[in-house]
């Protein structure tokens, strides 16, 4: 009797787990997500910063600074980066390679400092990068890091090296939202940080709903939890490329200056990094990198590189 009831328990348990798993497997969520991942992987394969890095400059007669000495001793640039920003810094789980504009900037900077593009990404979350820079756990933060005066009190910013516009994604059937002011009073999915700040500045009555990843924002829109999604437009273009039920509206707004975050106590290192940016701005490497990464998503002519020091805090 005991044996029988144990068997029944086990069987029902297995059936339950099985049905839960089957439920997940057959639900459209898994199907769409799988499609999205495959699509994203295909798009990600077109993004390749290696040509730009190969053409990148090597710094000559660089002065000695504490950070540079540390990087030389390590033999690699340790930087805070992201793994889930298509176009900027996207990890391909099958190859383990990270591709994108930010990754390219990091490799180019390492090449400029060391002669070879040796980088080590520490997945510093956006919560802690100021602290990691202050205690020299990382040498630089290159992860769609918006220059703001408040942050500039704690860290040095080289750059800006990229000016990001915010884009808006709505359902394909939605024709009521055509510009940022139409977001007033609407629920808008976004990520905390620069994207949310830009939204609040442009549409103060919009209700931001914060998620951790672009994919979650888009899913929330598909499920009708929010009326729109707003994020950096290159990130969004990558995310909506494979989704037929959402569309990107043509209008963009705001301009977030991305900078390279550096330790506050080494101002001469900031000068070196700005020299590096100036070099790649003028010799065309920046434009090549833009075309090979963000440009494959945006499909517009490359913009002129931003002006160094043009953002408050840089």
């Amino acid at each position: 009797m005991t044996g029988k009831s144990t068997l029944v328990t086990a069987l029902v348990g297995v059936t339950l787990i099985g049905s839960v798993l089957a439920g997940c497997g057959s639900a459209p969520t898994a199907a769409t997500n799988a499609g999205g991942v495959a699509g994203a992987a295909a798009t990600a394969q077109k993004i390749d910063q290696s040509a730009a890095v190969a053409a990148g400059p090597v710094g000559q007669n660089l002065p000695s600074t504490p950070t540079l000495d540390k990087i030389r001793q390590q033999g690699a640039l340790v930087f805070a980066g992201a793994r889930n920003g298509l176009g900027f810094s996207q990890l391909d789980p099958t190859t383990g390679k990270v591709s994108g504009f930010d990754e390219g900037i990091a490799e180019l900077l390492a090449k400029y400092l060391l002669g070879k593009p040796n980088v080590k990404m520490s997945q510093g979350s956006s919560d802690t990068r100021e602290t990691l820079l202050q205690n020299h756990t990382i040498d630089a933060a290159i992860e769609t890091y918006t220059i703001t005066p408040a942050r500039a009190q704690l860290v040095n910013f080289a750059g800006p090296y990229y000016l990001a516009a915010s884009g808006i994604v709505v359902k394909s059937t939605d024709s009521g939202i055509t510009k940022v002011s139409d977001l007033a009073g609407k629920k808008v999915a976004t990520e905390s940080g620069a994207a949310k700040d830009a939204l609040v500045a442009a549409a103060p009555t919009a209700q931001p709903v914060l998620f951790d990843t672009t994919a979650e924002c888009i899913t929330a829109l598909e499920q009708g939890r929010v009326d729109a999604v707003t994020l950096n437009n290159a990130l969004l273009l990558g995310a909506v490329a494979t989704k037929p039920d959402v569309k990107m509206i043509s209008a963009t707004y705001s301009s977030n200056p991305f900078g390279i975050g550096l330790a506050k106590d080494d101002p001469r290192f900031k000068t070196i990094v700005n020299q590096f940016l100036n070099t790649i701005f003028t010799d065309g490497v920046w434009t090549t990198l833009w075309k090979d990464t963000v440009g494959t998503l945006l499909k517009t002519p490359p913009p002129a590189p931003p002006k160094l020091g043009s953002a408050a805090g840089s």
Partner: protein
Amino acid sequence: MSILFDHLGELGTGLLTTLELSVLAFPLAVLLGTVLGVCRVSPVPPLRAVATGYVHCFRNAPLLLIMVMVVFALPYAGVTVPLFGSVVLGLGLYFASYVCETIRSGIASIPIGQIEAARAIGLGFGGVLREVVLPQTFRSMVQPLGNIFINTALGSALAAAVGVQELTGSARQFNLTYAQPVPSFVAAGIGYLLITLTAGQIIGFIERKVGIER
């Protein structure tokens, strides 16, 4: 630091959301967990199997996974619960598995003689549970159930990942705007302490009131 005091209101709103999440999710967990616990000791094999399966599924999955499933997978099954409700549901479903096991061990601690005596005076399964077993179970399980409440309050921090701006989310948002990681997370920690220490006091008080001297 002073900038933190200027924005205590935002953190206060987050603290209130955390409190609401815990106070709503905990009764759900106790209700569902008690039903499951009773099922686990019931004489009906299918009920026992369902409750055992439930506990195995929910107790052995990370809470974040369950929240993401409730928020993003349920809508594909045709059920779209608002984000706040989804988090309450996720917390309730998850901690019900812990309540179930607590109740089950509480029931097991009742001397078998009492149950036999209750049977002897003519009470059925439901009557034994209602009149003899469950009242004593709850009285001896105040402290373990209190621990589950504290875990619910702390677990609600994961709501920040699925769009509900509670205490941890508010602290993160404050930190991203003003780049003050240490003060903002210490402030959030103090907020959680406020909830958990108060809960601890209340649990102690209830236990002194209803606890069984053995």
